[in-house]
């Protein structure tokens, strides 16, 4: 497609133009996936809110130290990984391949740190006898909602780290373009965005009230 042809399409999106949003198809696809995935998480959060409301003696086991401090640090790590990601996208559009790969690796390290800290937290809960179907404080659904929500989010982070690894490898070799980096960035920021809801709803609202 020649440049003038492309320009014509961009300027007349509603007269049969092929590109009404002026973005590439990969990006539109990722955005549509993000909308549908956000509804998955919304459904989980709403059902969590519902079962929590149905059970008056819902456990609130988290102490400020260490549980809330730990999850606050995890939030910090994830937010910082979003910053390195967005700077990586900028570097990619400037054509600086080396810098982009470095930023992507920094993002992956933050993502891995998040998963590892999260895993140690799960191990602590397991040792306290909290499982998806039982816990020492009554109301077994607590474990179901907690591990369901944080587990699905953790799965997203893990997939994201692998995804970024592939993109960093391909972009470093010149196989992928800056558009690929931007689309992987959209996914990564979405994972960060979901945590912005899970952290207050699951952790901060379950602070021990004493």
């Amino acid at each position, binding site marked *: 497609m020649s440049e003038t042809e*492309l*320009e014509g399409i*961009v*300027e007349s*999106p509603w007269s049969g133009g092929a*590109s*009404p*949003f*002026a*973005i*590439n198809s990969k990006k*539109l696809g990722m*955005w*549509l996936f*993000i*909308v549908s995935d*956000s*509804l998955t998480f*919304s*459904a989980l959060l*709403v059902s969590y*809110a*519902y079962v929590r*409301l*149905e059970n*008056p003696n819902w456990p609130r086991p988290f102490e*400020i130290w260490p549980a*809330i401090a730990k999850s*606050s640090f995890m939030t*910090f790590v994830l*937010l910082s990984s*979003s*910053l390195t*990601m*967005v*700077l990586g*996208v*900028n*570097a990619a*559009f*400037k054509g600086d391949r080396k810098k982009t790969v470095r930023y992507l690796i920094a993002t992956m390290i933050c993502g891995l740190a998040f998963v590892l800290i999260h895993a140690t937290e799960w191990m602590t809960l397991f040792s306290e006898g909290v499982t998806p179907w039982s816990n020492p404080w009554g109301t077994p659904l607590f474990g179901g909602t907690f591990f369901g929500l944080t587990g699905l989010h953790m799965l997203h982070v893990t997939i994201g780290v692998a995804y970024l690894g592939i993109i960093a490898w391909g972009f470093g070799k010149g196989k992928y373009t*800056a*558009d690929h980096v*931007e689309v992987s*960035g*959209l996914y990564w*920021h*979405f994972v*960060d*965005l979901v945590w*912005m*809801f899970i*952290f*207050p*709803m699951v*952790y*901060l*609202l379950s*602070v021990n*009230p004493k």
Partner: protein
Amino acid sequence: MSAHGNAELTHEHPVGSTKLFAWVWMWLLLLTAVEVFLAYERIEVHLMITMLVGLSLIKSALIMSYFMHLRFERLGLFLLLVPAMVFCICMMLIMFFPDSIRLMNLRPH
């Protein structure tokens, strides 16, 4: 948000400066700190839920507008994605609120 020419279509130029993104990051950290402070103070639970949801919505708007570049895209993309998503979430809440309000009134305080 008017687009002219090829540059805008392929995003040849990076959108947003390092300084801008650093500012957004600091705001997100600040809002998170406010949330943690609310939990630390153990404020009254209804007020706490309202404030936490409000702060989370502000944070997600910041992430979507700046980190996810939605502010730099055409308005059409925003109109395609966000209203539909909000509508679907509201449909879920239609099931949730009547019951939650009823239960809150039934429960002795």
